[in-house]
């Protein structure tokens, strides 16, 4: 079957300003997305997420490298017929009604008139906009606009769906609605590629995530892989520990804090854990609690988007 999306060595350089200075948006991006998965494309603002999406949709032309969607080069009309796209903060023709707008998009896919009406009714009901079908787009709220955007992205029943910051600016109810819809779409067999900087949503949605920094993919994998630390980490709370044992523990723990006569320790690795247990037992101290810690996507995100000391930043 092959990948849904395949990107090899993608580069994009813009010329901007009066002096036409060169700005690198993408710097050799390599990425593969499997079919029928939810892929979260994460990165801070300006990392190159939207640029990548625009290249995949044929809105921008790459400076170097190549990108294929469903096995064909981007920009191919047969590929465009099988993809859907929701831009960030979507704008539509303000003076058209929701129904007219969707009818317009249907025509761009050469969908026959007999099919158009049924499809539009079905989609408006799906995104809960059937009660405002004949309302002009300019009179819709932000949440409604976002849902209308999703409806237009599904107008051709796409195989691959590109969503650029689909949850941006939505209230918790709106975000939950969109999340549920994305899960439904995956269940229907679609591939969903979405860019976001809201990590909570990515954590709740994605099968795979990729973290982008300064136009390069710095980490990719399943959520499971990312959230399982390379070295097991433990959090312990101990009491009644003499001063000299504290001194010993401070050499083992990565973090040691005193809170109301109790000491909170963070220990990395089972070897250090055993040493800590021995010291506490020998000193006559008491272990109140011990738990294994699990990293969050945010921890990994922060770790990967911050340049490491001495690391050259490619511009």
């Amino acid at each position, binding site marked *: 079957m092959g990948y849904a999306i395949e990107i090899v060595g993608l580069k994009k350089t*813009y010329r901007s300003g009066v002096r036409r200075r060169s700005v690198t948006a993408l710097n050799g991006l390599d990425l593969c997305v499997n079919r029928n998965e939810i892929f979260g494309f994460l990165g801070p603002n300006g990392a190159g997420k939207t640029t990548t999406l*625009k290249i995949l*949709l*044929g*809105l*921008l*032309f790459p400076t170097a490298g190549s990108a294929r969607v469903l096995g064909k080069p981007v920009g191919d*009309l*047969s590929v*465009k*017929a099988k*993809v859907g*796209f929701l*831009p960030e*903060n*979507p*704008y*539509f*023709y303000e*003076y*058209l009604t929701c129904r*007219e707008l969707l009818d*317009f*998009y249907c*025509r*761009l*896919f*050469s969908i026959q008139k007999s099919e158009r009406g049924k499809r539009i009714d079905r989609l408006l009901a799906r995104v809960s906009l059937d009660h405002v079908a004949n309302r002009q787009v300019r009179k819709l709220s932000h949440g409604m606009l976002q849902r209308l*955007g999703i409806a*237009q992205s599904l107008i*051709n029943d796409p195989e691959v769906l590109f969503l650029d910051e689909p949850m941006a600016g939505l209230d918790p109810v709106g975000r939950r609605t969109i999340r549920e819809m994305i899960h439904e779409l995956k269940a229907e067999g679609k591939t969903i590629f979405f860019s976001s900087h809201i990590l909570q949503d990515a954590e709740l949605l994605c099968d795979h995530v990729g973290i982008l920094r300064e136009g390069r993919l710095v980490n990719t994998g399943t959520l499971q892989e990312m959230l399982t630390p390379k070295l097991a980490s433990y959090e312990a709370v101990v009491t009644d520990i003499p001063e000299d044992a504290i001194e010993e523990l401070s050499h083992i723990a990565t973090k040691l804090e005193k809170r109301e006569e109790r000491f909170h320790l963070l220990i990395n690795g089972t070897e250090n854990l055993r040493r800590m247990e021995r010291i506490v037992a020998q000193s006559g101290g008491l272990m109140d609690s011990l738990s294994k810690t699990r990293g969050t996507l945010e921890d990994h995100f922060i770790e990967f988007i911050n340049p490491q000391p001495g690391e050259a930043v490619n511009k």
Partner: protein
Amino acid sequence: MKTWAICLNTFRETVRDKVFILLVVFALIMIIASRIFGFLSIGQELKIVEDVGLASISVFSLLVAVFVGTTLVHKEIDKRTVYTIVSKPIHRYQFVIGKYAGLNLTILVNMVVMGLFFYLLVRLMHGTWSSGFDMAIALIYVEVMVVTGLALLFSTFASPTLSAIFTFLVYIAGHLSNDMMFFGARSQNIFVNIITTGLYYILPNLSRFNVKNEVVHGLPIPPNFYVYSILYGLLYCIMLVIVSSFIFERKNLK
């Protein structure tokens, strides 16, 4: 079908926007002008109404062409509506042709309404409606199509303000291209001659579309003139749309 969908959509958007307000302004100007000039020029009321009527149709249609035409593509990029269109299975040239045709359709409807209003006014003043008026309005429409094409071309690479300035400058130069050729031919300087000849062939010869004075004063115009002018105008429009499409096909939609 796809180009037609974009054309129809452009028409619907411009009609629901503010374009028809111009019609009301036009109607008011016509009424006010015919009343005021009627008082001032005894015996010449009809000629004045005909003159002002044709000039108003021309000016208001050109205003729509310049101000809507120069924002035609730029507004789509600026408001990001273009993203959900170009990402669909359409060729970019279909988008450009659709937008151009849609604005021309809006202007055509505007001109038909203005023309009808003009016709009623002439008839109310007991004037005779000659076929020359039809042809003069048809030529104004072709001229407006050329100006819309210029506005479209500039809007594919420049901001609306710059596009409007460029369009306006080419419009003026286009009306002076005959004179430019005339003075160039009389010049002793070979370079001036080459430049004026070059400009004459590159710039649209918009004076070909202006027969308002001849029609109002009943002067004869050979039928061939109309045919060649319309053909020339249409060919020029096709060329402008091809160049605009060529630029837009290569444009990065940031």
